[in-house]
């Protein structure tokens, strides 16, 4: 039972460091790559907690599609060489972020400070798939309509006319 715990701490450290790097680096491309690393770390944590399908979907969709889309956005706007990075409210933003973290941490520690979690329940893909196509089939179809609408909307917004 010690091995998953060690893996978790390593992955948590990796994810935390890359998350902080993502929002503090002054290079836009580095920020997108930091996001990719952070999301891979989160996906590994998902798999560690038994959510194998969600972890793999996370790598496929976020790292494979979303980060590449960000890269396209950065490259096509030419901001990789002419960066516009931060505004002048960094200090205040850091203060707000720390305050948010303190409030969240206080809430977590007071509600779940003594509870333990194990890594013993797995959610195999067959289980998720069965639930998705029986009980959750209506939201599933709604999401497919949403994706179609987003596709059409993105084309309408971005086309040259």
């Amino acid at each position, binding site marked *: 039972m010690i091995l998953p715990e060690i893996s978790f701490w390593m992955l948590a450290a990796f994810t935390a460091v890359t*998350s902080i790097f993502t929002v503090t680096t002054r290079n836009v491309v580095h920020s997108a790559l930091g996001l990719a690393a952070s999301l891979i770390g989160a996906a590994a944590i998902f798999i560690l907690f038994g959510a194998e399908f969600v972890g793999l979907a996370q790598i496929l*969709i976020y790292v494979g599609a979303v980060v590449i889309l*960000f890269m396209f956005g950065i490259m096509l706007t030419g901001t990789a060489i002419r960066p516009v*990075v931060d505004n002048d409210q960094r200090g205040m933003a850091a203060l*707000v972020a720390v305050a948010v973290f303190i409030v969240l941490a206080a809430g977590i520690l007071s509600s779940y400070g003594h509870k*333990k979690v194990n890594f013993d329940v797995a959610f195999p893909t067959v289980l998720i798939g069965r639930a998705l196509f029986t009980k959750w089939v209506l939201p599933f179809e709604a999401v497919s309509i949403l994706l179609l609408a987003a596709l059409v909307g993105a084309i309408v917004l971005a086309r040259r006319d």
Partner: protein
Amino acid sequence: MPVAAPLLLSALMFSCGVYGVLARRHGVMLLIAVELMITAANVNLIVFSQLLRDQLGNIVALFIIAVTAAEVGIGIAIVMLLYRQRSTVAVDDLRLMKW
């Protein structure tokens, strides 16, 4: 393992996202920070799925991932439109909805 550890990691990621949204000027970097916040929410869902031995958290996390993909597509399209019309991606320069 204490369940507070992954929840605190999620809180840290969320705070990073809050900082990014507040401090960044670049439209794409703003979206990147929003992605961090959404992933923090997903970490919470997966951890509670394990804690409560219920697959609901997994299902909701999947839906969140799908909705995020739609959100990012529209977001990048808006940034591209912005760049084409105003030659800037700095969101601080946008003070009017219509001009």
